[in-house]
């Protein structure tokens, strides 16, 4: 016993330990607060929160679970990028390599795929809970709007990722999906009124999405960049606006009567 406290004490007094944690933790009110605002990750939170934030029946933790799913996707996604070339010559065989050559490649790919499905499911349930608790009402109207954009971005993240394995499933799903672009009123070559703007298959919305008039190499590159860079970047920024607003709007909503 004595020995144990002694070791603990020595670790705590160690130069390296002190350089990391900066101060002692003594479970006082002050230290519990310090633990939150002294830590860059924890200080997303206020020092104290409603009991409802801790008891799961109000939020179900769904927003947090969505964010956690996103983090898992970023981590597995970055690792996947080490093994992947966004070109139609290599993409498919890279995925095959993941299956047969790369250590734990299958698990890595599975985690990314099922994590993506999972995130889409939980973000919809999060929206449902926010609706059912009326948490979009004043003063949270704007944050609901940010949320809707995040919902759309979540769909688009998953959608752009679909093409990257360059297999039949993704290829045709993207073909079906981007054909909708061709139907855009005014700006798609099959859409109503587009003839007035001299829109053709070579200058319409679909062309812009695919970087061509059909799903080919440019489309793969575009999907890849949207998927790995552009949409995650925008999503992260909006998530932080979202979290910021949760706090500024007074934390998790509570009954207002």
């Amino acid at each position: 016993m004595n020995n144990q406290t002694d070791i603990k004490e020595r670790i705590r007094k160690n130069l390296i330990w002190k350089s990391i944690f900066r101060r002692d933790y003594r479970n006082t009110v002050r230290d519990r607060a310090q633990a939150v605002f002294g830590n860059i990750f924890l200080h997303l939170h206020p020092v104290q929160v409603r009991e409802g934030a801790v008891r799961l029946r109000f939020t179900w933790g769904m927003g947090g679970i969505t964010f956690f799913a996103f983090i898992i996707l970023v981590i597995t996604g970055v690792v996947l990028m080490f093994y992947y070339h966004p070109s139609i010559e290599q993409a498919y065989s890279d995925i095959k390599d993941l299956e047969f050559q790369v250590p734990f490649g299958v698990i890595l790919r599975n985690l990314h795929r099922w994590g993506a499905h999972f995130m889409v499911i939980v973000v919809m349930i999060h929206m449902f809970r926010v609706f059912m608790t009326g948490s979009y009402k004043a003063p949270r109207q704007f944050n609901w709007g940010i949320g809707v954009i995040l919902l759309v971005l979540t769909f688009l993240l998953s959608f752009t990722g679909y093409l990257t394995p360059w297999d039949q499933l993704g290829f045709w799903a993207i073909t079906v999906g981007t054909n909708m672009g061709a139907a855009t009123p005014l700006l798609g070559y099959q859409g109503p009124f587009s003839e007035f703007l001299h829109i053709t298959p070579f200058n319409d919305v679909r062309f812009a999405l695919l970087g061509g008039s059909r799903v080919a190499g440019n489309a793969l590159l575009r999907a890849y960049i949207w998927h790995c860079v552009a949409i995650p970047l925008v999503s992260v920024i909006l998530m932080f606006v979202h979290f910021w607003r949760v706090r500024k709007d007074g934390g998790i909503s509570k009954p207002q009567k």
Partner: protein
Amino acid sequence: MNPFIEIITQPDNIAIVIMIIMVTFFTLWAFQQAFDNDKLIAAGKPVDGENEGLVDTFKPLVRIELIIALVVMVFLTFWSIVVDAPLEEIANPTLTPNPAKAPWYFLGLQELLVYFDPWLAGVVLPTLIIVGLIAIPYIDINPRGNGYYSFEERKFAIVTFSFGFFILWLLLIVIGVFFRGPGWLWYWPWQEWDHSRVVFEPTRDLSNVIGIDSRSLPGFIIGAIVVNGYLVAGMVAPYRYLKKKMPDFLKQFGMIRYLVTTFLFITMMSIPVKMVLWLVFHIKYIWITPWFNV
């Protein structure tokens, strides 16, 4: 294998099964809490959470976040060990699969293609869904039911949202995943897909029903009257009703909010309307114009 088992155990469809289970669970939980609170309100008691205090973030909240993160991680790891992500044949532009399905979360929209032309199903309606969702907090001015589950206090909002969420979004997804086969024809999950099956469904347009060519000028005029009449009636009728029954509410609601709300509402209702027209009466288009068809 039994086709039903086969279709629900396809790796990507397992996600849909998980979604159905999760959505059902959380829906029941939400409505359970809503009804409980309704009873408390009726009895004049505070609702769940009304007298709640504060707790420290460190450690109670941090601890629960850690636990949830672990549970999610274990769940996803388990899922990833048990089920392998599929990889189909390499993309082949000359070999169109039948049916070619969009990713599952867009299958509700793809299902709309049965009833609407692509510019509506794929562009206009999705845009209005997004706009409509963002508009919700600005058009729902009912101050009650803020920050707790309840049903009695905001029936219209909950029923409308639930109709959109459960029927028009989730149910159509489930139909698209499990009930649509080659040629986008209806298949029960236990039915074998038959690639040579063709269904000849005589189609007609609205004005054909009364013997007028839908592509003629009279047909055009009839279509224009019906479509625009639907929009106008859908926006005027509630006005007259509210004016009579709830004049104070209407005044407080204001004209702009009223117009936006009714427009979004009747646009949403045009989906079931067109479904019935097609499924029951085999009417394809209501209004044919040289530029677009509705």
